[in-house]
């Protein structure tokens, strides 16, 4: 770990972290502000939902959600928050070392007296700080929104914390996968298409996994590993799936170190 690189990297993503945090805060606040309406007319809501095509409900995981409860409604919002956080984490993962290479600044950094391992660790920690900061803001915003709009309705704090934790695990996953893919492909020219592709691809897979109940897509899509509807309904993580998720992240990060230490830094032709 090198404090200078950490500071530089953190500073470079500072604005991005603020923008993501503000956008997510606005989203959580706005969506949750309509919760009282849903909850007051629970019967009507459920009637309306019953008329939706079952496949659609399945795709959004809404058949397992009770939108009239605090956490049921929150888990509906958090699906979208997870998607955004995944894009953010994917962005940082794909860009972590590839931006230095596509903008040719890698020569500058790696001709300094630091090891590749130190470079990667410092960069990862900087990005991780940014991601955790975003999570923290989302948590505070969520907690504020729930406190403000829940009225007299009760909820289980322990489950809310599990939902909060799911964001961190999910971000680590997309960070690790993004990083390892960026090191496996020859060159990443632009980060956003990759991270959007990865996040939405997995999201769509997760949705389809709901539609074709028999097909076991949940093993490969991170959104199923940390399905908010499941967490709220069962009051716990789906432990085997979460373990798969964490294992994949750890493997991706280890492979990334292995690849980065051996990597030939491309030069301007």
């Amino acid at each position, binding site marked *: 770990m090198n404090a*200078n690189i950490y500071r530089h990297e953190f500073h470079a993503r500072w604005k991005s972290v603020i923008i993501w945090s503000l956008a997510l805060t606005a989203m959580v606040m706005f969506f949750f502000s309509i919760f009282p309406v849903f909850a007051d007319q629970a019967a009507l809501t459920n009637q309306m939902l019953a008329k939706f095509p079952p496949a659609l409900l399945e795709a959004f995981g809404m058949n397992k959600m009770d939108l009239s409860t605090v956490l049921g409604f929150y888990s509906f919002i958090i699906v979208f928050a997870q998607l955004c956080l995944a894009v953010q984490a994917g962005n940082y993962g794909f860009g972590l070392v590839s931006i230095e290479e596509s903008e*040719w600044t890698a020569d*500058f950094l790696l001709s*300094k*007296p*630091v090891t590749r391992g*130190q470079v990667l660790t410092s960069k990862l920690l900087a990005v991780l700080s940014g991601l955790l900061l975003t999570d923290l803001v989302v948590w505070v915003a969520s907690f504020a929104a729930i406190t403000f709009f829940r009225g007299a309705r009760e909820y289980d704090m322990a489950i809310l914390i599990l939902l909060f934790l799911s964001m961190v695990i999910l971000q680590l996953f997309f960070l690790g996968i993004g990083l390892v893919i960026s090191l496996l492909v020859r060159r990443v020219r632009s980060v956003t298409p990759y991270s959007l592709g990865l996040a939405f691809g997995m999201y769509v897979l997760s949705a389809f996994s709901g539609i074709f109940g028999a097909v076991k897509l949940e093993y490969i899509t991170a959104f199923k590993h940390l399905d908010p509807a499941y967490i709220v309904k069962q009051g716990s993580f789906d432990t085997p799936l979460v373990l798969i998720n964490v294992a994949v992240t750890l493997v991706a990060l280890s492979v990334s170190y292995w690849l980065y230490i051996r990597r030939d*830094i491309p*030069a301007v032709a």
Partner: protein
Amino acid sequence: MSIIEVSHLTKYYGKSRGIVDVSFKENEGEIFGFIGPNGAGKSTTIRLLLSLIHPTSGSARVFGKDVVTDGPEIRRDIGYLPSEVFYYEGMKVIDLLKYSASFYKRDCTQRMNELSEIMELELNRRISDLSYGNKKKVGIVQGLLHSPKLLFLDEPTAGLDPLMQRKFFDLIRAENSRGVTVFFSSHILGEVQRLCTRVGIIRDGRIVEISDIRTLQKNNYKKIQVSAKGLTSTAFNIPGVTNIQAENNTLHFFFKGDINEVVKKVSSLKVVDLTIEEPTLEEIFMHYYE
């Protein structure tokens, strides 16, 4: 003592050739010129020595340490000016220089200010606002501010105006006179001749010649063009003349040997025009392949 010791260093990028079986030594305090056309493997060699890339086979030692295993330790005392300079676009020059200095365990502020003054660098501009030449100046200050013991200069003068080139050469000479070893890669023979004591010539990834700069020049051809009325190719029928071509009273030829022989011949003519040139790098290579 050898500062750089390269033995049988080979680098392939997949199937495409980087360098093949390159061996040479550079002694402490030397300015070693590394010349060759674009794509010959000059940058590949430097990047291997900086461990930006890893060798396919062979080995290299800098300060007596292996570049693959002791990279970070070696790089403490290395300054590097790449041929194409790229820095973090959003940063200010001063912040980039401070970031660069932060990697070395010594106070570089004074040296940084000295160098910026010499190179007339404006410290408060943004990198993205700088012209190519100004970015190159950032590169020079950045490469020298920590007072390195060994300098890698990869085609350093591209983008610098003649005045800055001269300041830069003075700077490099000054560094060299306080003991800094310089590895100078270039495809411009003139600047190598001005600065270096010894040169290595690389072509198609292989070293074709390593020699003292004087020997190289002595052994070299001069390119001569003479215009005089009624001139025919028989006028310069002396040993050492090759590739003679005549057109419209003008003769072009290469000459290798005692230049006085040519001067004598020329003085006996009523010359309209005369040029004697250094051969271009390409022509030197032709010489090495004859």
